[in-house]
């Protein structure tokens, strides 16, 4: 195999050679440098393949024909091979990406890049601290030169700040090395470690200088202003080199010298790293400049990596996998983002809407951001998962909190940024053209992320347990995105059908899961049918829709925590994109994402605490968790953010109302059940009826009741039809939460009945109203009216829907209500119960408002010509109506097996529902859906017939032929009483609906932003104060340590 030394020589030699070329022969010089970097790339690749293939240990490379410690020695192992590969690839692509700026600056600049790459290679390979020092200097100096590329404003001052900072840092480094040599009498790392000297005051101080200098090279918060200025001033291509190249090398140096120091250095690394991670992510929140923001984010990510190095002992055998996945995520995503920002050209975040002109770039941007945050299926997800789990097993909970908090803050700015890109107002001026030099590197890195995701998935313990088939299916959909919508739609539906068919056998015995599987898959199919009405490509819709459904069904399938969390995040990701597709959804999708992220991290935290001290990660261990209080509380709150319980509901109305007509039913009727299922899993873990005593359950009960009341009450006062439905969802989920909290057999029957009903009628209503909105192009109910004449089918659908919603016999809604009364009385939660029933009667108000204001009353002139909703909307509605009818007539078909399952289980054995034939009974009361249906049906028909008989000669009359005291109205506008319909009620109890929660959340939000904005003032821009910060950092850390 080719020795890495030769690649060093090649790089250096060609650097000297390139310096010779004249401007005229520039292109030749360029070709030469490309080849010169391609060679070491090839070498590293060769070694990496070798090490993967064989189990050989690292290989020592000696120079000057003498053994270390007398001569400088290099070492190449798996890690070195991989890191040099990364660095060399970065170098190669940088030359391509920076082709134009390089040409402006001339051959010398090419030489600089070659030397930089060479330096990084040596830093990674070398085992001699002084040698490392020399090449660190080389790398820094080369960078100082490279920042002249694509000259921007203030480059010089930024360069000077960087230089002086690096000079100080290297002075500390050199002094440290000098004394390490004095006390250790060697410069070779391995030799030093082998001696394991007794730690004297002098030696520890020497090592302190060494370590702190290397740490400072990694720009720890807050001693990093110089680096931030450089990030801002330099060409993004150079920023990529700093963030991806030098940081990588310095990180590895840290890892190499770690054994030299005493044990406490691991803790120092952890604290330094985590403080960096948290600090720079907080300060990033109020950053408006893209490049500088990337700087903040880089520093944060690198901080996390430093901490991971510090954790290396705790992580043990998982260290490589974790470090790999986190490192590769940072490397690929951050470099890719820098390159993207180079293409965007303008610095302010809002300008990134320009990405919309190149959809695939937008996709890539999304991939990068989600990789940074750590969403599946990207590598960082697996890294973070394993990291947190391992830390939990060490009871390092406060560390976990810091990491998750940092990630959350990171999410705050990254998703705002994504929002700008997807939905921000189009920038007017002409778009930059996308040449291959830009497209190639970015695209390549995006692809590499996918690959890396697969690798880290396979590498991580339990990684293989994740079912990747859906993911591959989704990827395929991305590839097929060029096809017309109806084909992709068919493929997606087929996918769901087939998957359901394959899934059925393993769920057929577990009715509880089966019900939700039906909701998720069946609902998915139905709502996708509506999608046929969309013409054109509908680019980027189906992959994410399928992602959401894959996530949901994954929840049902999951039998270990990793699978569950994977599915959960997948669902969040897909639904976020679906929601943000709506017209005015930027803010709502942002809120949705932040709440989901926060919730997900709480769930994550809970799971981690559950794994602590237990073997394996199967869902079972939730029952035997060592910290029941924390685990359950955290997870419960996490799930409540998804079910939009009061307090976490503010994202829902906008998100559901502004979404596309056929997306609203997905995210309302179906997505919310994800949270419900999560709660079910959690409550099952809490262990059935004996959990009734659990105060958490009691609190959740009250929360559910109040949510139901407030949700419904707010819905009553909505003028926007979809918002009304959205708030009603909040209320209905409140019922479900309340019923689950009973932790009793009947209670759960109620909850499941409610979930199923809510799925049926809410999907139905959203489809129907969506169809109407599609036609009349407005959400405002008071602008509609009298549409029954144009849209009879939609009217019937809504009628059925609201009868079910209001729980009026004979339809299945009543089943829920009846079970409810029994459960409440059995449980003795009378007052919560009373509140919920009050909520139920209030629901009746908005039901009426919905159907009356839209379909009845006075038709408006502008809508006289509208047609019935598209047939693709009607079909699923009919299917759903049939579903409701069947469930109403024969509730036993579903409730019987569920009941048997519950009472059969160890969880809820006592007083179940008794069935004789179709009549259900408890020890309180009885109810026979079938007979009620029969009686009412017959009676209704008889009376109808009778009326028909009596008034057979009834004749149709005109719209305005109404008894109108004195005069006749002439405009429907004044005659259609629907705006602010329940004003008296509002005067009476409207104060309950004041947006207090929203206000308090806003207050939290603004507080955080103000803090970040004032905190980042420490980066005063004065090079000297940066130096003071560095000095202070050194001194303070020293005083803390000694």
């Amino acid at each position, binding site marked *: 195999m080719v020795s890495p030394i030769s690649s060093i020589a090649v790089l250096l030699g060609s650097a*000297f050679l390139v310096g010779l070329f004249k401007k005229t022969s520039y292109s030749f010089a360029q070709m030469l440098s490309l080849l010169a970097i391609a060679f070491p790339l090839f070498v590293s690749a060769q070694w990496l393949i070798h090490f993967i293939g064989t189990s050989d240990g690292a290989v020592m490379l*000696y120079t*000057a*024909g003498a053994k270390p410690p007398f*001569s400088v020695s290099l070492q190449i192992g798996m890690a070195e091979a991989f890191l040099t590969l990364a660095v060399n690839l970065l170098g190669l692509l940088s030359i391509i990406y920076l082709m134009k700026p390089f040409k402006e600056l001339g051959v010398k600049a090419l030489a600089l890049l070659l030397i930089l790459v060479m330096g990084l290679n040596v830093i990674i390979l070398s085992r001699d601290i002084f040698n490392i020092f020399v090449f660190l200097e080389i790398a820094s100096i080369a960078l100082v030169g490279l920042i002249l590329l694509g000259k921007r404003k203030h480059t010089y001052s930024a360069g000077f700040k960087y230089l002086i900072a690096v000079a100080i840092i290297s002075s500390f480094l050199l*002094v440290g090395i000098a004394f390490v040599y004095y006390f250790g*009498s060697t410069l070779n790392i391995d030799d030093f470690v082998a001696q394991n000297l007794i730690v004297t*005051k*002098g030696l520890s101080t020497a090592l302190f200088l060494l370590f702190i200098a290397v740490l400072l090279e990694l720009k720890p918060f807050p001693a990093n202003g110089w680096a931030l200025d450089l990030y801002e001033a330099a060409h993004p291509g150079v920023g990529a080199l700093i963030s991806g190249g030098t940081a990588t090398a310095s990180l590895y140096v840290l890892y190499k010298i770690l054994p030299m120091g005493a044990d406490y250095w691991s803790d120092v690394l952890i604290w330094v790293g985590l403080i960096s991670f948290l600090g720079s992510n907080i300060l990033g929140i109020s950053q408006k400049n893209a490049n500088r923001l990337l700087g903040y984010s880089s520093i944060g990510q690198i901080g996390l990596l430093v901490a991971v190095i510090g954790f290396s002992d705790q992580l043990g055998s998982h260290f490589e996998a974790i470090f790999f996945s986190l490192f590769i995520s940072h490397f690929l995503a951050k470099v890719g983002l820098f390159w993207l920002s180079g293409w965007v050209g303008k610095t302010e975040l809002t300008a990134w809407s320009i990405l919309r002109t190149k959809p695939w770039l937008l996709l890539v941007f999304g991939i990068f951001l989600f990789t940074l945050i750590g969403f599946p299926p990207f590598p960082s997800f697996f890294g973070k998962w394993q990291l947190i789990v391992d830390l939990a097993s060490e009871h390092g909970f406060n560390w976990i909190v810091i990491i998750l908090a940092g990630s959350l803050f990171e999410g705050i700015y990254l998703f705002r940024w994504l929002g700008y890109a997807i939905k921000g107002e189009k920038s007017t001026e002409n778009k930059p053209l996308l040449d291959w030099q830009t497209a190639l590197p970015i695209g390549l890195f995006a692809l590499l992320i996918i690959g890396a995701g697969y690798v880290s998935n396979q590498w991580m313990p339990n990684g293989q347990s994740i079912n990747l088939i859906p993911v591959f299916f989704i990827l395929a959909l991305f590839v097929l995105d060029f096809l017309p919508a109806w084909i992709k739609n068919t493929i997606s539906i087929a996918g769901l059908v087939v998957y359901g068919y394959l899934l059925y056998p393993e769920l057929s015995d577990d009715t509880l899961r089966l019900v939700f599987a039906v909701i998720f898959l069946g609902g998915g199919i139905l709502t996708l049918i509506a999608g046929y009405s969309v013409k054109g490509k509908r680019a980027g819709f189906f992959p994410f829709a399928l992602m959401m459904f894959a996530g949901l069904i994954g929840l049902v399938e999951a039998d270990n925590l990793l699978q569950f969390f994977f599915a959960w995040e997948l669902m969040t990701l897909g639904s976020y994109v679906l929601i943000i597709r709506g017209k005015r959804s930027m803010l709502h999708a942002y809120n949705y994402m932040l709440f989901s992220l926060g919730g997900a991290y709480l769930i994550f935290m809970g799971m981690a605490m559950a794994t602590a001290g237990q073997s394996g990660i199967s869902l079972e261990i939730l029952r035997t968790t060592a910290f029941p209080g924390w685990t359950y509380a955290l997870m419960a709150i996490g799930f409540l953010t998804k079910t939009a319980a009061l307090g976490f509901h503010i994202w829902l109305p906008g998100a559901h109302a502004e979404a596309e007509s056929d997306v609203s039913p997905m995210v309302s009727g179906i997505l919310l059940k994800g949270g419900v299922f999560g709660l079910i899993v959690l409550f099952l873990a809490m262990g059935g009826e004996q959990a009734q005593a659990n105060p958490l359950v009691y609190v959740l009960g009250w929360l559910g009741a109040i949510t139901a009341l407030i949700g419904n009450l707010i819905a009553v006062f909505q003028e926007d039809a979809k918002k009304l439905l959205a708030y009603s969802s909040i209320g209905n989920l409140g019922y479900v939460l309340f019923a689950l909290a009973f932790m009793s057999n009947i209670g759960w029957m109620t909850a499941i009945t409610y979930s199923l009903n809510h799925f049926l009628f809410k999907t139905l209503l959203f489809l129907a109203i969506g169809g109407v909105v599609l036609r009349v192009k407005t959400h405002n109910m008071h602008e509609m009216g009298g549409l029954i004449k144009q849209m009879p089918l939609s009217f019937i659908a809504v009628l059925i829907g609201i009868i079910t919603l209001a729980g009026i016999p004979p339809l299945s809604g009543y089943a829920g209500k009846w079970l409810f009364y029994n459960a409440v009385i059995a449980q003795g939660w009378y007052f919560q119960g009373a509140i919920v029933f009050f909520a139920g009667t209030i629901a009746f108000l908005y039901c009426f408002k919905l159907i009356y204001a839209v379909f009845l009353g006075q038709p408006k002139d502008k809508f006289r010509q509208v047609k019935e909703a598209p047939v693709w909307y009607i079909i699923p509605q009919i299917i759903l109506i049939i579903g409701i009818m069947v469930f109403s007539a024969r509730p036993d078909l579903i409730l019987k097996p569920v009941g048997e399952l519950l009472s059969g289980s160890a969880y809820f054995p006592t007083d179940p529902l008794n069935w004789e034939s179709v009549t259900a009974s408890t020890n309180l009361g009885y109810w026979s859906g079938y007979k009620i249906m029969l009686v009412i049906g017959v009676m209704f028909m008889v009376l109808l017939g009778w009326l028909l008989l009596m008034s057979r000669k009834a004749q149709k009359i005109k719209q305005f032929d109404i008894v109108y005291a004195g005069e006749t109205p002439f405009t429907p506008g004044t005659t259609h009483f629907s705006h602010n319909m329940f004003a008296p009620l509002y005067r009476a109890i409207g104060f309950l609906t004041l947006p207090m929660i929203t206000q308090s959340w806003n207050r939290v939000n603004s507080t955080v932003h103000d803090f970040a904005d004032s905190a980042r003032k420490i980066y005063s821009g004065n090079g000297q104060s940066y130096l003071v910060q560095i000095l202070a950092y050194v001194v303070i850390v020293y005083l803390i340590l000694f």
Partner: protein
Amino acid sequence: MIRNSFLILLLAGLGWILFQEFDSFKGSDQLNPVAEYYATQGPQEVGAANLVTSVVVTYRGLDTLGEVTILFLTAAIVGLLFKRESNSETEDIYGTSEILLTAGKILVPMLILVGVYIFINGHLTPGGGFQGGAVLASAFVLAALTFSGTTVKHRVLEIVESFSGISFVLLGILGVVLAGGFLDNKIFSLGTFGHLFSAGAIPIIYSLVGLKVGSELSNIVLVMKSSEKGGDHD
């Protein structure tokens, strides 16, 4: 005021840190193993009378390569920084004093001679490539300052430095091919200890380094000189 007192505190802290080192520094009475190896094995292995040189050029040759690279980088970057000015021909606006002129006439050739001597004998006597190169550079600079007409062509300097740099690397690779490893000097016979033609590749390497350093240093200075001339009118 507050800032200053804060600085005082910081410096006190820094002083405290360094004092730890000073406090635990006791000097040393005999060589540590590594140094002893250099002293005992050095002459046989490398064959250079000047042990420092043997360490610099051979044992820690990689560092030296790094140094050379750093100088190269510096020269290149300074060149980039003053691109526009550097090609503006340096016309002398100060004029040269009689003394300088005379001194220059005498000194420049001698300086060149001394410089070359220093780096050629780098393996025997104190000094070496860097020192010699520095002297050489001083000669060029002096010349440039003195005889306003005769400016050294950047092109020439560039070629010299690139050429010497590449040859340095090539010699290093030859070490891998012919001898014990990268930058091993035993590619040529070690010769008789203490003579000019001894210590294998060291004299050649040092000469190359000398040339390189000389050209680079003079390059840097000349570029800056010309730039601050050109700088006045922009």
